[in-house]
């Protein structure tokens, strides 16, 4: 199909483009920018005047819950939510039931995504069998089956020897390893940042050291092995300093942070509001400031949704007994735009952190509107105000504090290849 996206503000960080122009798409790829190519017969024109045209968003962490927890989310429901948020590619962790530690499960997810999904789904494989931290998962086979990287999620690898071996093995095949750093013994039965709010509410705190100790251990072993490594969903200011220092020593590591950690703090939990129960926990104002600094200085290259849909009952209990997580795919873009409104980032910088930067983390050809690239495109109106409600939300998880919250910035078209996978009703 030949599509012309007319008159939008085209922002493509991969080519350092930010101009009002037309975008031409043919045969699933970007054909031209600006001048209409000769012989181009338009099948459809999309008027993007007053809107931003950018590469489709790439989300480095989104739980889809399938297979295993389909009452919380399915590949169909959650990828439908993703494209409504302008996300065309998402990375999904191996913590499904069964766990992604065999090629069969990886293939099943990819097949299901091809059949019923709306967005491109990149599964992560388990770093160790059953995420048990003891034996290596068949990483090479999993990578061949389509796993984009490997992680032990938030499950502990108690033995540093096992971790070292896993990283050595991944490095052998130049596989990407993603850390969601957490020292289980320090987390213990904590459910909130260890700070004033935890003390007042009498909830068991999770100290910053639960993250920073594991970040330190992982960094030292990355240095030892030279593995390609990424740190996902960091929450502490000190973690950012550790990453920054490692970079200065020449280490090739990347990092991302969830949008809610850039906006919220543990103070929101006052009154035991389980909507703010997330893991890693929302931390102090100082930590939030450190994370925000990190995205300005590019120590943190990417921003993700850390989408974790839950069913209603999972949030219906006293705080510590509720399940952590925020359903975030549909609010990633409008919430990220707040960082522009707060003058932390310029719009093109923000777009880079949502498109090109995560593509580079993953080492994939995506997140670009360069001629010949796949036509994964997001068109959004940054000024359009809207409200996410329990009626219009597409995710099965309604667990977000931003439900019925005034949002600004709405996606009006999402294309994958040349297929319009999302348009508002």
């Amino acid at each position, binding site marked *: 199909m030949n599509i012309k996206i007319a008159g939008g503000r085209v922002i493509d960080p991969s080519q350092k483009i930010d101009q009002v122009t037309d975008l031409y798409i043919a045969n699933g790829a970007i054909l031209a920018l600006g001048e209409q190519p000769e012989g181009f017969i338009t099948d459809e024109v999309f008027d993007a005047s007053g809107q931003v045209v950018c590469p489709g968003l790439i989300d480095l962490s989104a739980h889809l819950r399938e297979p295993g927890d389909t009452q919380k989310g399915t590949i169909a429901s959650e990828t439908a939510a993703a494209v409504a948020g302008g996300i065309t590619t998402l990375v999904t962790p191996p913590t499904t039931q069964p766990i992604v530690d065999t090629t069969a499960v990886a293939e099943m997810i990819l097949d299901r995504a091809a059949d019923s999904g709306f967005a491109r789904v990149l599964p992560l494989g388990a770093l160790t069998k059953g995420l048990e931290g003891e034996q290596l998962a068949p990483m090479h086979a999993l990578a061949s089956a389509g796993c984009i990287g490997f992680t032990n999620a938030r499950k502990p690898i108690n033995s540093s020897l096992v971790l070292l071996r896993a990283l050595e093995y991944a490095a052998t095949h130049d596989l990407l390893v993603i850390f969601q750093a957490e020292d289980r013994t320090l987390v213990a039965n904590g459910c909130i940042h*260890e700070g004033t709010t935890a003390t*007042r509410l009498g909830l*068991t705190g999770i100290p910053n050291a639960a993250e920073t100790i594991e970040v330190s251990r992982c960094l030292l072993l990355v240095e030892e092995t030279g593995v390609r490594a990424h740190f996902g969903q960091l929450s502490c200011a000190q973690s950012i300093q550790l990453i920054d220092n490692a970079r200065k020593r020449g280490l090739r590591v990347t990092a991302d942070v969830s949008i809610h950690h850039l906006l919220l703090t543990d103070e929101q939990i006052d009154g035991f509001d389980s909507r703010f129960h997330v893991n890693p926990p929302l931390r102090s104002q100082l930590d939030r400031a450190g994370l925000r600094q990190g995205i300005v200085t590019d120590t943190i290259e990417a921003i993700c949704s850390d989408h974790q849909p839950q069913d209603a009952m999972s949030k*219906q209990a*006293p705080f510590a007994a509720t399940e952590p997580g925020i359903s975030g795919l549909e609010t990633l873009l409008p919430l990220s735009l707040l960082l522009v409104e707060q003058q932390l980032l310029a719009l093109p910088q923000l777009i880079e952190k949502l498109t090109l930067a995560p593509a580079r983390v993953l080492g994939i050809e995506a997140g670009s509107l360069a001629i010949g690239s796949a036509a994964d495109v997001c068109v959004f109106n940054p000024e359009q105000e809207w409200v996410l409600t329990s009626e219009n939300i597409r995710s099965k998880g309604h667990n977000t504090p931003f439900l019925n919250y005034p949002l600004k910035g709405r996606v009006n078209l999402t294309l994958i290849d040349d297929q319009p996978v999302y348009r508002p009703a």
Partner: protein
Amino acid sequence: MFEVTNPNSIQLTQDGKLKHFLTTEGLPLELLTELLDTADSFADMSAQQVKKVPLLRGKTVVNLFFENSTRTLSTFELAATRLSADVLNLNINTSSTKKGETLRDTLMTLEAMHSDMFIVRHSDSGAAHYIASKVTPEVAIINAGDGRHAHPTQAMLDMLTIRRHKGDFTKLKVAIVGDILHSRVARSQIHALKTLGVPEIHVVAPRTLMPRNIEMLGVRVHYDMAEALRDVDVVMMLRLQKERMNSALLPSESEFYKLYGLSEEKLAYAHPEAIVMHPGPINRGVEIASSVADGPRSVILDQVTNGIAVRMAVMSMAMSGQQSERAAQEQGENNEY
């Protein structure tokens, strides 16, 4: 980015009356004083021949204890009976809720039986808030202890005991001693003491039992008993759970007693007329010496007596708050037609 409202305002009606009693935090001075005055009148009454008043006649009070407790349960039961309520005691072992029935289902079933008040004890911090805000907001919820968060009736009976012995709160120095970290009693005491105008509150414990940033609640932190107790008028001891010994928080009971146990020698640091309090049950020789617990400065048994009066006051105030709110709502609904 979210509007900051006082999360504890859910325990008040629109015109500021008590309708649930979840925490002492955020309650205004007038309300705490009214509660103490009401409790005072009940305390005087309890000494008389006829101990019953009809304030809760025809009302059903359910004691819902998800955690074992003999004392608190029995004082609540006695308080409800003295107010002429019908009382149902349910000891719900947490394991039975693990069989599948959620806390929410249990509560909603009981609400359907037209209960008017739930006295709730639960091992999870925030359980009472959760019930009052999300499950059965039309039933008066009295928090009889939730996790490490709050034990507001215990704190108020302590306040009544202090007032009866010492009078003016605004001239007092108070020390709270022991396992502050795990103590819902300490948190509720601190909020109540602050609101009542106590100018100096000292807390003392080893660092392993001291919660992070506790000074943000307006207390002075000490690790040494001599410093903490110097010249105080009230010494409030906390219970130390035996299982803390197994979790690397303390090396031994004897070392804890040596450093933080209230012996005659340590009590000598306090003001000569200082009173000694303990919420019970007491671990003699762990937190406190027997001679101090049973000595002339101890007001531990007064606390128990005052507990009944305070619980009667809380129950009658919350019930009347619920009723006035419901009446106001019905009035509002009628006005719409």
